[in-house]
């Protein structure tokens, strides 16, 4: 195979490197070590996802209506200040939020879901608000002038046009959520954090990576999944990825 360019050569080099990495992992028995944790990973990944689904789902259900309400003209006066409060809320480290929620709700799933919910709420509410506020005034005037009621304007014009931005918020929020769930282990809610933190404590890189790699993969998969849903759900006319 003649090497025709630097890029081609680089690719070949990468392939060779991957091959030798494979050979090394096989000979050193690392794969076997990882496989040892497979049952744990399966169990904890389900738990992990479950925390995400609960807290994320709750956040979506609360944040979108919140964003809608804040974007109503009647709320215009308070909306900006409320948004600022939410923004300040975002700056509190998630670990602190989890610690706070533990001190009120004890340990276990409930305080973890609550803490994650709070951390996930903000990006979605903010994007919903920004997306709805970003709908062009001309569009709103046309919708009103045509004789749509406020509810018809919201559901037929505003939400469909803001949907892409709202989905972007959900994507960001859930990806962050999955990356944050490992912290929930610290307040006794399980998840892949169990492998990560225990691995760190025991100086066991294989154990730690058995938690970290699936966490990363989950984040990527969920991100792709939501992107796919957005692709299918957002109307073609306002969907940049389908233009």
């Amino acid at each position, binding site marked *: 195979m003649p090497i025709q360019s630097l890029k081609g050569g680089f690719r070949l080099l990468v392939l060779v490197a991957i091959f030798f990495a494979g050979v090394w992992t096989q000979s050193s028995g690392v794969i076997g070590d990882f496989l040892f944790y497979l049952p744990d990973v399966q169990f904890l990944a389900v738990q992990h996802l479950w925390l995400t689904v609960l807290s994320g789902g709750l956040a979506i259900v609360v944040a979108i209506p919140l964003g809608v309400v804040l974007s109503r003209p009647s709320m215009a006066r308070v909306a900006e200040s409320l948004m600022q409060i939410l923004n300040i809320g975002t700056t509190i480290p998630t670990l602190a939020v989890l610690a706070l929620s533990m001190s009120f709700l004890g340990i276990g799933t409930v305080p973890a879901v609550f803490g994650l919910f709070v951390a996930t709420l903000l990006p979605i509410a903010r994007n919903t608000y920004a997306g709805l506020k970003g709908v062009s005034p001309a*569009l709103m005037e046309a919708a009103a002038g045509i004789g749509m009621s406020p509810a018809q304007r919201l559901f037929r014009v505003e939400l469909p046009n803001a949907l892409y931005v709202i989905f972007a918020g959900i994507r960001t929020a859930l990806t962050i959520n999955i990356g944050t769930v490992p912290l929930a282990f610290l307040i006794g809610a399980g998840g892949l954090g169990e492998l990560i933190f225990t691995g760190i404590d025991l100086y066991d890189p294989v154990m730690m990576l058995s938690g970290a790699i699936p966490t990363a993969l989950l984040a990527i998969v969920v991100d792709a999944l939501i992107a796919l849903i957005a692709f299918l759900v957002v109307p073609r006319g306002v969907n940049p990825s389908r233009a």
Partner: protein
Amino acid sequence: MIQLDNLTKVFDTPKGAVTAADNISMEVPAGEICILLGPSGCGKTTTLKMINRIIRPSSGKVFINGEDTTGLDTQDLRRNIGYVIQQIGLFPNMTIEDNISVVPRLLGWDKTRYRERAREHMDMIALDPDAFLKRYPSELSGGQQQRIGVARALAADPPVMLMDEPFGAIDPINRAVIQDEFLKMQQELKKTIMFVSHDIDEAIKMGDSVAVFREGKLVQYSTPDDLLAAPQNDFVESFLGEDRALKRLNLVRVREVVSDDIGTVSPGDTLETALARIDDYGYQNAILVVNDKRQPVGLISRALARTTKGFCRDHLQNVSATVSLDDDLRKVASLMFAQDITWLPCVDAKGRVCGQITQRAMTHHLGSRFRPGTTDASSSHVATEE
């Protein structure tokens, strides 16, 4: 019919109350286009938007076809008024078909009916239904989008339309095309239309009547020709521009000015006859030669007729231009200026010579309608010259 009765809007601003529209009373007869004209901030848009309550009137009433709209539900009112805005405002999340069908669907029409209506309207605005109905607004040009905007406003067949600078954002070439299309449509549809514009030329072209606004007040409400011929005050006059007499050229058809007293010769006549007739009719330059179907075939110039002998048919010079009865005087003037002539033959629909139009007749026609006694120097100047 749209009737406004003492419509007033006062905005409360931090700097105090601002009267955007001050006791506007006017009436647009059914089936006519009324242009609200004026500089920005003059209250024309406020007045328009009070009719469909995008802006709530501070006081006053709006009657549509004789019915007081004050008691009507806002949504019902708006669904029965077509509304077209400058920014077009098509819903980007909907296909063209859905956009056009929005109002019929709000009104609860059944699916076959509003789909059929959408196709009819596409034909009316000269866009192919099969090619466009399933597309999205972002895939269309600005001109096409505003055509759809007009179709959307017309979809439920409202008796009244409000148009807020509808063609303002479209390039000049397309704008002229859309204006013409719209006027053609209006001839069939006969909607009662209020149309905001800041473009005097558009107002003259589109309006059956023009209402000029200034600082919230209705200054003058008259036909375009009256407006140009007799502006009520200095403001209106300066807004119309110093070339307002020229603008009137657009409004007058050749038909109104043409004189059927035209001297012609036939190809078989001698040049002597031609010269005699040139003198009879007092032509300075040339006489028209027509064939037995009275179609123009050429010109015989005075100089040639005087110096040469023979038959007209052997000495024809090209007829530089003719105008038809439905052309406007602007075209006539343009032809005259372009060719340094003061006289043009007119032909009817079948191409037969039916008269002549002279610069003198044009200036006389226009000048006679300028109101004498206006305080302004330039207009009285024109009036006395005739």
